[in-house]
């Protein structure tokens, strides 16, 4: 049993399959959500998948260094900045338009 479980140690492709599934779900969410906050949440999924990938490659390809992890940190920081601005925009937008439905927000076209 233990051996079997040990033999299940995930290889890189398994990890990547997982993160790309996470990313694909994020894409699905981004494209299907009408609520801007929902889009943002899905975006966070993608970002997170990316951050995990950085750590992943770090571990599998150059385990004695931490460059990937540093990148993950940066991703987290950027995500923070992005969320702040995005939420501020949503709040302001809601104030003006009473909606954050992205299907209604097509003024760029006019």
């Amino acid at each position, binding site marked *: 049993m233990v051996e079997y479980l040990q033999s299940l140690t995930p290889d890189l492709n398994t990890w990547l399959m997982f993160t790309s599934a996470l990313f694909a779900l994020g894409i699905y969410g981004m*494209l299907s959500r009408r609520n801007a906050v929902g*889009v943002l949440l899905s975006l966070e999924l993608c970002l997170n998948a990316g951050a995990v990938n950085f750590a992943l490659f770090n571990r599998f390809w150059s385990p004695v260094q931490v460059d990937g992890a540093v990148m993950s940190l940066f991703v987290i920081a950027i995500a923070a900045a992005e969320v702040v601005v995005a939420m501020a925009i949503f709040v302001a937008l809601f104030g003006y338009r009473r909606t954050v439905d*992205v*299907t209604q*927000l097509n003024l760029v076209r*006019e």
Partner: protein
Amino acid sequence: MPDLSFILSHAWLIPALPLASFLLVGLVLRPLHKPLAGAVATAAVFAAAGLSWWLAFDYLHLPKTAGGALPVLVPTSVEWLRFQEGLSVHLGTLLDPISVMLLVVVTTVSALVHLYSTGYLHGEDGYGRYFTFLNLFTFSMLGLVLAPNLVQMYVCWELVGASSFFLIGYYYDRPSAVSASKKAFIVTRFADLGFLLGILVLGYYAFTIHAGMGAAAAGQQALDFAFLTRPDVLSQLQALQGQFLGIGTLTLAAVLIYTGGAGKSAMFPLHIWLPDAMEGPTPVSALIHAATMVVAGVYLVARSFPIFAASAEALQVVMVVGAFTSLFAATIGCTQDDIKRVLAFSTLSQLGYMMFALGVASYEHPLGYTASMFHLFTHAFFKALLFLGAGSVIHAVHTNNIWQMGGLRKYMPITHGLFLLATLAIAGIPPLAGFFSKDEILAAALHSGHTVVFGVGLLVAGMTAFYMFRIYFVTFWGERRLSHLHHQDDHSHDDHSHADPHESPAVMWIPMAVLGLLTIGAGFVPIPEWVRLVPLDGKLPEAHHGVDLAVAIPGTLAGVIGIALAWFFYAGDPQRANSAVLKLGRFYAVIKAKFYFDEIYLFVTKSIIFRLIAGPIAWFDRMVVDGLVNATGWVTRLGGTAVNASQTGQVQTYGSWLMSGVVLAVVVLWATTRQ
């Protein structure tokens, strides 16, 4: 030329005086002080006239050339416009017999007209403007007369045209004057196009010859008259092989240049502007449209006579058009009611005379050349006198229509006497000026073998006497018919309009009297002695002397018959004239309507040029050319709209495209990197 007297070497002073006065009056005095403006302008031209007489005196006392002719001088020549090496335009003065003669005529008549105008236009609004342009005209005319090359001629040619335009349109709030001035300018402009093309053609060949001559042409420019009339140049020009539509190059150039002259001198069919030009003040008509500017065309042909002489066809054209115009205008002149228009048609007719005189001239029979210049000389004085007399009458009675005048000899004795004098002169009655010159012309036509032209000339002489005496009798004889006057005259002060007409002030009749003296004396000036066609070899033959009785008697007879007819129809019972008119019927109406030439021109300009060419072009430009531009814009926009449909403005649509792009990129990447 160190031995020239002061005035000969400084001939440029003569045109410079009116120019200076033009600038002074136009820029400074005109708005400040009107009487002073008139005085300065007049004084300047009088000074120029004095200088011209001085110059003429000195010139005639110059030693003659080996061939016995008066010398041709170019004392001043300053480079003005450098087209190309060998094709520069030098402003300068050219003194030869005809230019000196015309110099005297122009300055004298101009000075007298200036003086006359100070009285005629006294107190009018445009007084200063009038003298400004009159000065400009005098300057340009003098420049034209003295021009040593074709381009200076053309330049001054245009300037006299422009000043004529402004002077015809002097009463610029009168629509008729405005349209007359436009007409004059545009018609002459059209003719000048021919002149310009002539310069281009001649300039090209002359330049080629000039370039080929090398040092032989040093110091001369291709368009200088001195160069163009050199025998060697002429022979090269004549030898040109170039043909255009079957016309020899030289003929083409000559005819084109003649077109310019024909426009200015109002030859048929470009004559239509001159009668209308009478809308200008009468002194203007006297100076510009009788004595000086209109003879510029004749002068141009005379000036470039060697070129014409080298082309028999060109001279033929000059002769035929001149003779026809002469007859044509005389015919119309018999029917007009406006005193100035009759004079205008008489001017046309006399210009035709001068032209055909040139046309019959040649190196074998050079008399026509002399005669033409002689007639130009005498005609200037008596025609100016006629116009000034007419102006004096109009000034007094405030109408142009001869049928509203009558019996004026009682009220205006001086004017009457002078007018009669001039009328006799133009009718060719000896010993007045017109007799001699007309005689010369007829003699030239006869002796050169152009019998038909001689006949036409004789006929025209008779008609001239007839219509001139027609207006003379109607205006000055008979009963007074001016109790109810129309104020359609050409000046505004009408303080005497309801009183009896009275003699004009001294400032007006004195110039007329001077012209009267000249009318008497001009015939005795030995112009035929001085002005002669110098053969190419420079040797003058014996001069033609005295009066040829075979010509003088029929000529005078024609005049007398004309006067008698006029007396018969117009001096006595007016019914005679009326019944004659009734008999002539439609024929008379057609002549009176000037053969409908104005209507034809109007039709061509209004209906053909404006409606059929300019209008459609404007439409074409807006609709088709601009339409194509707009269509390009529209198609682009359409394309944009089509693409725009994919731009929903929705984040997620873009996201979908992005994703499909990513997927596609990966697939492509994979497909292309796969081994």
